[in-house]
């Protein structure tokens, strides 16, 4: 009944804990990873050097990592804002496709001669509205009939994917380039392409970081965010204090869909430069869910987590090129991510040896209390 290890919630974690724990977790992962690499017959030092060089060492590596992080930040924010209110939008992937479809539609429709500022603004605006509308397909049943948004948003992903595939592979749509033998999207005009900052890195990263800061401000510093956080913590307390849970469900899911859709616009405009289903469907929306969870739904946390995840991803392909088995690479990636994530437990809880013997005196709820609740 009594265990030697005692876990108590911290309540409030200081900066030393918040930054120190992930760092120690990373070190731990690298040590364990070194053992695995050695067993698999590789040189850990060389592997780690390659990982570092290919993702974070030097301007080219950094821009490559940041370019990969750009859409991840946006889908991470999309998930974070919904999760903050405990509305589980699993539909970021589909909302991203819708954003790509709507954004590229505007880019192909408006005259090429238009100024890039107007063109890109219009693409982002229309893409965001389309993504929000797509999310509302799940938000409205949720708000009015309490339909489970996990199911509806997940299912809408498949609808969005099918729609995108149909537009390019299944029909001679407005988006499809009739001149290409292999089906593909029409190339966007230059004014509809996000200007490059350096190499693959385009201005989407600025949009993403500004969005993160804006979202943080909305959640932390406005009465709208106050209500969202209250509902996320306790819907009954929110209702008790007169907040409209229904209205917030609609706005939060709409905003979530819009953010994921902006990721789609950013990809279609800055990376694929036309509606290319194969290149767009790379689980960016789903990865955003993981990012939000690790960042504890904090918009400012989403940025470093996205960059970290992008760094692991970019270094992976280079590791294979130096002869490390792909399975070992995946294992290493998973290990790093897992330990850093698991470190969260040590941030929110204080773990130590039990001083007192009696379980109940420590404030632990007796395990059977839950069962006994039926008796009154």
């Amino acid at each position, binding site marked *: 009944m009594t265990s030697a290890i005692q876990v108590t919630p911290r309540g409030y974690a200081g900066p030393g804990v918040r930054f120190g724990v992930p760092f120690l977790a990373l070190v731990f992962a690298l040590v364990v990873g070194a053992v695995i690499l050695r067993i698999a017959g590789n040189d850990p030092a060389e592997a780690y050097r390659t990982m570092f060089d290919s993702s974070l060492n030097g301007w080219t590596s950094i821009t490559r990592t940041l370019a990969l992080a750009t859409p991840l930040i946006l889908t991470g924010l999309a998930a974070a804002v919904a999760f903050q209110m405990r509305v589980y939008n699993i539909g970021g992937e589909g909302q991203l496709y819708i954003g790509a479809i709507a954004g590229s539609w505007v880019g192909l429709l408006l005259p090429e001669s238009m100024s890039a500022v107007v063109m890109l603004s219009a693409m982002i605006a229309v893409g965001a509205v389309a993504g929000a509308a797509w999310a509302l397909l799940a938000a409205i049943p949720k708000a009015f009939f309490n339909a489970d948004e996990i199911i509806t948003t997940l299912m809408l992903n498949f609808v969005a994917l099918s729609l995108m595939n149909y537009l390019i592979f299944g029909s001679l749509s407005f988006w499809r380039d009739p001149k290409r033998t292999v089906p593909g999207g029409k190339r966007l005009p230059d004014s509809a392409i996000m200007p490059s900052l350096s190499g693959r890195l385009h201005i989407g990263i600025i949009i993403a970081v500004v969005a993160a800061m804006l979202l943080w401000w909305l959640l932390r510093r406005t009465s709208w965010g106050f209500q969202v956080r209250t509902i996320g*913590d306790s819907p009954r307390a929110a209702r008790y204090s007169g907040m409209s849970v229904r209205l917030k469900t609609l706005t939060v899911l709409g905003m979530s869909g819009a953010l994921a859709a902006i990721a789609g616009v950013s990809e279609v405009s800055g990376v694929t430069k036309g509606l290319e289903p194969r290149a767009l469907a790379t689980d960016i929306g789903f990865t955003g869910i993981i990012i939000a969870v690790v960042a504890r739904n904090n918009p400012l946390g989403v940025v470093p987590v996205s960059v970290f995840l992008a760094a692991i991803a970019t270094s992976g392909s280079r590791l294979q090129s130096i002869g490390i088995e792909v399975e070992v690479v995946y294992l290493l990636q998973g290990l790093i991510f897992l330990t850093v994530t698991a470190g969260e437990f040590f941030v929110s809880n204080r773990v130590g040896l039990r001083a007192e013997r009696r379980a109940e005196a420590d404030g632990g709820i007796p395990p059977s209390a839950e069962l006994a609740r039926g008796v009154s």
Partner: protein
Amino acid sequence: MTTEPSRLEVRSLTKSFYGVPAIDSVDFDLRGGEIHGLLGENGAGKSTLCSVLSGLYRPDTGTVSIDGSPVQFRSPHDAAQHGIGMVYQHFRLVDSFTVAQNIVLGLRRGTRPKSIRQAESMVGDLADEYGLHVDPTARIWQLSVGEQQRVEILKQLFRGAQILILDEPTAVLAPQETDRLFEAVSTMVGKGHSVVLVSHKMAETMQYTDRLTVLQRGRNAGTADTANSTPADVAKMMFGDSRAADRREVTTAADVGETVLSLSDVCVTGDSGLAAVTDASFEVRRGQVVGVAGVAGNGQRELQEAIAGLRPIASGSLEVAGTDCTKTGPKGSAKAGLAFVPEDRLGVGLAPGLPLEHNMALKNHDRSPHSRFGVLSSSAIAKTTKRLVEAFDVRGNRRGMRVSLMSGGNLQKAILARELTEGHDVLLAAAPTRGLDMAAAEAVRAHIVDERAAGRGVLVFSEDLDEIIHMSDVVLVMFKGQIVGSFTRESLDVDAVGLLMTGSDPTVVSPSGSSIEIDLTEAPDETLDVATISTAEEATA
């Protein structure tokens, strides 16, 4: 009868949680072939005693013996091996499984029937034997609540239970189902089983049990032969009788002023879709504390929620300080001048995972000075928090700490601080001192009494009858969703309140010597509206 040996013998059993005894040196005997009623208020220790007997908790001290030999249960399975079976109020059945599947579920190899066919026929035979008719092949979700309860009982009988503990078995049943249940119970008793009937309801306890034991605040307040007891005696055992004296010391109300809360014929529907509150009508005036007594689950929560605007009012009307709030929702009630201290401190009154600052601004975060044009002012919120914390002596908060880590007393003071500093005319407080230690409870009561002195109206709900009587100028009694009695300070009769709370009619069963009067019509200047003795009769009929 009295020479019959005990099946189950409990001696000086004590079980504490967090240092507070839930049951304290309890003695209890159960004879072979008897139905033994176990009564007590909420928190009297009934559930803890049952949980110890069914092997869920291990006692701190004391002994349990079966047929004279001491036993120690390590688990519910262990208790079942010794022939003790518990039927919970909330069933533990798998909805998508059949009756027979549910009954054999969890049986170990050897005791389990060879096939599901065999299980079905065994269950069928058992059901016939005890008159607990239910189709063994039916799936649980197809069954009525009464049938599901039969499955639970069969499950225990199948496991060879000789001692059955039924936890408020009639709480969920319709009257005809109740009759059928007790027919089956008497069959069981006829076959030598012993039954412990946990109940709040006086009528069924008096009607069906052979003996009864009353728990009060974790102690055995007495065991008696039912035939030799009157409801009035039992109510006295349940609620005590010392309280009439000390309530007189409370300062009398300031001048009673205009009406600040008025309900007329309010009907409210519960979560199950059935009526939870029927025709509630009463008023609360300035300078007056109105207390609502009642055993939990008699519609109090639904009535509170309706007054606070959290639950729609099906019919009737509600006014808060002269404003019609029948359909205006939580914001409307608050705006009209209602302060509400809800039953659930964490989860309703406070958002548990957020810091104190956030919770202190919960209701007025969107107004100046806490926000302007939708932008929050952290400094204004911090300032308000500091002021409230100092004024109400809220302790144990650290910056940024989630409120759920604070103690119950401080949480309640924090809610009071927030609710009582906004402009309001009437305070609605639900179970305001539940779970608090003595000092914190006293502080909370002092704040409530201050409200009266300040010329505001107070409506307080509590399961603690002492508290109600101690604070209130007017006492209302709620039973089965109705106001079944109302008493002024002068007319208050504690015994009658206790009887009404358990659904008995005090004018019918009068204890020898003392006459009971319920003074409803005699105080025309008082605020009470309805609550006549006839409603009490209807409720018990």
